[in-house]
């Protein structure tokens, strides 16, 4: 059984259908990069996986469980209780384009907040683990800094540590380097590379082709709310079969 099972997912914003029957499986330990032009639905798909967005049809399961919905007797999906969805989300890490570190908390407090508040980890233990995580992203000496005192790259590394503090079984990355100055992209990608090497299951929306080529097990190409092509990066980059993939790669490489 795949860790993430996405079956025929449809999603609309008003009259605009942004996902038109997307299906995708991600195995445990796999690193999948979602590619596509803006508006292709890749970020929306990512946000549906942890139910930050609702879906209108189809289903998404993580570790065999629906996230955000329960299926009643006649097979219809119903929104489940907030507390139940929240508990499932706790094990799905997410890293945002704009970092979204909690502005009123220090780097250390950002990392301890959810383990203490959601998982009820004793504060002393959470703190110790948070310092280890900050050290692992190279920011132990910034533990007592507020987000506004950190560079974008540092903020994003804290955000990765914050997500990892929940011991997620899956990490979602939504264009994690798009808001960064070019010279800060490398440090974040390096952190992600090491995470991938440690065996973390990752779904990454990015335009960083070098990351996709070197780290991804599989690249999934989306266009107009559909998956149009997927395969190992070597194959997809050197011999794309779909004309839109060719056009996209020609533009971006």
């Amino acid at each position, binding site marked *: 059984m795949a860790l993430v099972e996405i079956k025929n997912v449809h999603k609309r914003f008003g009259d605009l259908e942004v996902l038109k029957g997307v299906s995708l499986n991600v195995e445990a330990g796999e690193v999948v990069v979602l590619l596509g032009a803006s508006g292709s639905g890749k970020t929306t798909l990512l946000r549906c996986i942890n139910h930050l967005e609702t879906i209108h049809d189809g289903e998404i399961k993580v570790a065999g469980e629906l996230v955000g919905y329960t299926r009643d007797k006649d097979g219809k999906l119903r929104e489940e209780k907030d507390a139940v969805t929240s508990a499932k989300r706790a094990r799905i890490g997410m890293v945002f384009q704009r970092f979204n570190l909690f502005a009123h908390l220090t780097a250390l407090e950002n990392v301890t907040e959810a383990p203490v508040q959601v998982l009820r980890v004793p504060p002393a233990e959470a703190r110790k683990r948070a310092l280890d995580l900050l050290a692992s992203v190279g920011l132990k000496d910034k533990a007592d800094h*507020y987000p506004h005192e950190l560079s974008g790259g540092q903020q994003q590394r804290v955000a990765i540590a914050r997500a990892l503090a929940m011991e997620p079984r899956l990490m979602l990355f939504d264009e994690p380097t798009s808001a960064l100055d070019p010279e800060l992209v490398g440090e974040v990608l390096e952190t992600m590379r090491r995470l991938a090497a440690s065996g973390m299951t990752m779904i990454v929306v990015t335009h960083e082709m070098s990351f996709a080529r070197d780290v991804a097990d599989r690249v999934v190409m989306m266009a107009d709310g559909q998956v149009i092509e997927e395969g190992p990066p070597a194959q997809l980059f050197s011999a794309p079969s779909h004309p839109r993939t060719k056009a996209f790669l020609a533009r971006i490489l």
Partner: protein
Amino acid sequence: MVFDSSAFFETLFSSTFIVPALTTLGITFVAMALAIILGFGGALAALSRHRALRWLAQGYLGFFRGVPVLVQIVFWYNALPVLTDNAINLPALIAGTIALGLNEGAYMTEIIRSGLISVDPGQREAARALGMTKAKAMRRIVMPQALKVIIPPTGNQFIAMLKTTSLLFAIAVPEIFSTGTNIYSQNFKYFEVLFVVSIWYLALTALLTALQKMIERRFAARPRRNTAILAQEHG
């Protein structure tokens, strides 16, 4: 005009105003507490994804901001007993406090709403992605940041409320101003008595201003980071 200084000082140093001053302060705090509770409810309703709740908040806001507060005060004290065949007949102090609190709640709704929308939606989203429930994300992440925006104007409203309590003289609540009117209607020393009344209000607003400064300092200041502890852990 002759300033009757003996009448002035006699009134100023009489103990007559002590209980009314405490009454004024009491009404102010209770009415503001009511307003803040209503304001939170109103702000959450105004930002709700349920249309009925948004309409409810809009209706509350529109009505209570639109009708003069003096009219509301007299309604609660004089009109409500008639309307309910005396089933509800509130003492003036309670009727007046409810009227002020309900009216102020409309303003607090707007203040709290603007505080909540000043917080980047990404903060709430990150909290939710980490497994916090809606309530916890509000309490732990959004509200602490919103408070920085909410507290200064709330201090302002507190001081405005202190002065607005004087309208309760219309339903004979024994607060500072009505106590003054009772005195000058007997001795006709309008100016001297109003001067004393003003001094009491000034003293109380000064007190509230000091309180506001104290609270703002506490919330605005970022906690100093504890370098000693961290240095120890690095070492």
